[in-house]
């Protein structure tokens, strides 16, 4: 471990050019004031630069490593997005600046709303949710508001969610007080229609689905599912985490969904930032238009103006004090302008090509593919159930061993219904050669398991730390440097 920045601190050392030099008179009564200054590091500017540069070098990232993390779409984030979003007219613009000096940014936001409508096949878009789960919350809230407007929100208390869903789906439904009814998936990866038919009823508020699903396959009976849920009076929520797979090929709005969120940080090239910020706009069909979270950007003549509660009395309200992660919206807007219509279609095509190619290569090399008879979407699942049984190695071990070879591990143990699994998403921005190299290494690890399983169980060995003790972390609850 690199020493903590606190441990590099020297009393009275400062980087004074960064703060006002003069001390100023404070006209505040003593009872309001702080008695002891906060225990923050006292370090020079150079020490800060070195410390955080060195820490950054301990990370894997898209800029440095192949990062085939399923359902996360770790594609290349064009540097120009960062560059242009930092232009001073945008970056230093106060959110409450007057409208007539905010037309440039609002125009970008308005056009982004329009583009997202086209991409999703929906009639309305609100950009304001701050991330995917925040978008899910907005979607669930709109479903609730819809039932409330029809007077049956008291009886419609259940949200149906397939067992393969992202954890955020049930968590978002629960944030709005829904009880979650899980339905199973069939052996071929499609939703169990018979189970769905039994699950729906007058208590159904809606269903939350990802399509292509987290199993890496397209839900072929989607129209039938939509009919069953709609006939029961429920609505369909589309989790947009896997939109990358189908851009320009098929649209959630056309599949029969009523509402969805998009992850701009997945499908639209904005960086993940080590866990955020993302941006999770919501899109809706005509039924849900009145309920969109505000503000929305509207065009009046040549002017871009906010639509607020005054215009939309049925809105679910605000999700952010301002307008959400505008800087991320701007990056996604730039990404769409760079790629254009044809480029966006290629995203779906080449992410799908890469996934299917890697799947077949691994299959030929003896890996167990979870859904061998299906075409993959932009991601697919392999399972190490056999290796686990024969050699005692786990998917986690193999993931850690990949780190030793300079590849980030795919998503492990998700979805929960496939044992010892990898969910692999190469994305469209990786070359055939990089994908081949990954397959090569994974094959090599398979050999290592047969010769010396302990080597793999002991991985990683080349990282800044070896396998970390999660149990101790949860038990010790050491969440901060205490100053001693």
């Amino acid at each position, binding site marked *: 471990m690199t020493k903590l920045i606190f441990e590099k601190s020297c009393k009275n050392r400062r980087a004074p050019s960064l703060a006002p030099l003069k001390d100023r008179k404070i006209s505040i009564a003593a009872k309001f004031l702080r008695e002891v200054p906060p225990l923050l590091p006292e370090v020079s500017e150079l020490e800060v630069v070195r410390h955080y540069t060195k820490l950054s070098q301990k990370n894997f990232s898209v800029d440095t490593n192949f990062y085939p993390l399923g359902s996360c779409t770790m594609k290349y984030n064009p540097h120009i997005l960062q560059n242009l979003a930092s232009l001073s007219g945008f970056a230093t613009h106060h959110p409450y600046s007057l409208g007539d000096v905010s037309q440039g*940014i609002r125009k970008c936001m308005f056009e982004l709303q329009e583009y997202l409508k086209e991409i999703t096949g929906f009639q309305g878009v609100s950009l304001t949710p701050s991330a995917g789960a925040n978008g899910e919350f907005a979607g669930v*809230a709109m479903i609730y508001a819809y039932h409330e407007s029809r007077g049956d929100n008291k009886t419609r208390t259940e949200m149906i969610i397939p067992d393969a869903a992202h954890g955020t789906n049930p968590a978002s*439904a629960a944030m709005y007080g829904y009880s979650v009814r899980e339905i199973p998936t069939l052996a071929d990866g499609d939703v169990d229609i018979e189970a769905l038919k039994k699950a729906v009823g007058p208590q159904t508020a809606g269903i939350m689905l990802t399509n292509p699903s987290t199993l890496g396959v397209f839900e072929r009976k989607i129209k039938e599912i939509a009919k069953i849920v709609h006939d029961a009076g429920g609505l369909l929520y589309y989790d947009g985490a896997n939109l990358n797979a189908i851009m320009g090929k*098929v649209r959630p709005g056309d599949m029969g969904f009523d509402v969805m969120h998009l992850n701009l940080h997945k499908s639209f090239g904005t960086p993940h930032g080590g*866990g955020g910020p993302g941006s999770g706009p919501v899109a809706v069909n005509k039924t849900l238009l009145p309920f969109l979270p505000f503000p929305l950007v509207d065009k009046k003549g040549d002017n871009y103006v906010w639509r607020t509660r005054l215009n939309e009395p049925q809105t679910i309200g605000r999700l952010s004090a301002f307008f959400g992660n505008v800087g991320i919206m701007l990056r996604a807007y730039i990404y769409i302008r760079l790629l254009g219509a044809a480029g966006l279609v290629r995203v779906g095509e080449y992410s799908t090509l890469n996934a299917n190619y890697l799947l077949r290569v691994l299959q030929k090399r003896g890996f167990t593919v979870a859904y061998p008879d299906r075409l993959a979407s932009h991601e697919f699942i392999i399972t190490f159930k056999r290796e686990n049984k024969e050699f005692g190695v786990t998917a986690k071990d193999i993931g850690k061993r990949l780190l030793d070879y300079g590849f980030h591990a795919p998503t492990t143990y998700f979805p929960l219904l496939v044992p010892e699994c990898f969910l692999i998403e190469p994305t469209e921005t990786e070359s055939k050669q990089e994908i081949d190299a990954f397959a090569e290494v994974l094959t090599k690890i398979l050999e290592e398991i047969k010769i010396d399983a302990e080597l793999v169980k002991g991985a990683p060995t080349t990282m800044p730390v070896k*396998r970390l003790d999660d149990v101790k972390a949860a038990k010790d609850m050491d969440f901060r440097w205490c100053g001693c």
Partner: protein
Amino acid sequence: MPYIPHTESDIKEMLSTIGVGAIDDLFAEIPKDLRINGLKNIPEGMSEFEVARLLKERAAQDQTGLCFIGAGAYEHYIPAVVLDLISRGEFLTAYTPYQAEASQGTLQVIYEYQSMMCHLMQMDVSNASMYDGASSLAEAILMAVRLHKNEKAKTILLPQALHPGYRMVIKTITKAHGLNLDTIPYDPKTGCTSMDALQQYANKDVAALVIAQPNFFGSLEDVDVLTNWAHQNSIFVIGNVNPIATALLKAPGKWGEKGADIVAGDGQPLGAPLAYGGPYFGYMCTKKENARQLPGRIVGRTVDKDGKPGFVLTLQAREQHIRRAKATSNICSNQALMATGATIYMSLLGAEGMRRVAATSHANAISLRENLLKIKGVKAVFDGQLFHEFVISFERPVEEILSALSKKYGTQGGFDLTDEYPELGNSLLVCTTETKSAEDLETYAKQLEDVL
């Protein structure tokens, strides 16, 4: 093809390995009648150069002059080092640090972030960040309700002098939880939360009182009195503070006899650009005994199998990817990069640097207020103590005045309170930070006098 590296021969080989004739065949499982043929209404792609020109034009359109707006987003100077370091690809393009061994950089930064926030707030535990101040405060309210021993405690006391946008977000996020969100009026003389109005809630089923310091008007609340009153009535105290102000003002952990129970608010003043409202980040801290009810990610220190120290995401049994419908929140992505920026910002400035930023912002506000009140037609609205924002009123509609300032000088004069607080008449909320020089303050006074 932009960002797609495939050559013709790559594509051919890949298709042949898969055993299909064309890329389109890979979409064969999608029902035919659902397929679309390309995207309409989206322009053709542009070169990087062309896009840069377009965006520079749009950005130039929005370039303004001096900005005296605060109201929850503050223009502080951001040292070059902050933006340079968070633009490093290793921070910028990494995912959530689930693979701890390959993410020690981000994990250690977040541990340092949590440590700094704890020391700043004088609280025991901090999470790894929330979306923004408003959503963080809303989640803090839900957390207080979960923690409260009295299951009937469903009332939350929100000061009217809390950011109006925050109150709206709280309403949206807590809607399904059956809470009573009661608004506590402010004292029209001081702009501070009225103790008299609070008294009727003594010994009622109240879960939490939110205390904003400074409040939306920039006024300083008597946090000790409010905190003690709340605790005497078994009410949790949720502090909502400006983190820069906290370098100067009493930390929430020291409010009253027992300190605030939860602190939640916006971290934007710590090195996040204004960026038209985001991305910022929400912070949330609490006492150690409440750690298991925190929403969001938490980094913990542990050891590897050789006993070497390292960091992991921990207490994950609270989170959606493990606990699903029973999680403390649905939050997944947070604002890690902005928290990284805040960590670097706090390291660069240290306690003394932050205190000076706060003190200069405050002294500028005192000085500007004095100057503006000398202008004919400008009146003071409150007489309480203030941090770096204050309210003044005019005889004419504020909208006209702000528009004239912007059109004539490019100056953004403040936040118009007319819509949210009509009872204050033609009132304007003005903010100064350390970025304003003495000349800037004089310039603003002259400009305002001119347009009045």
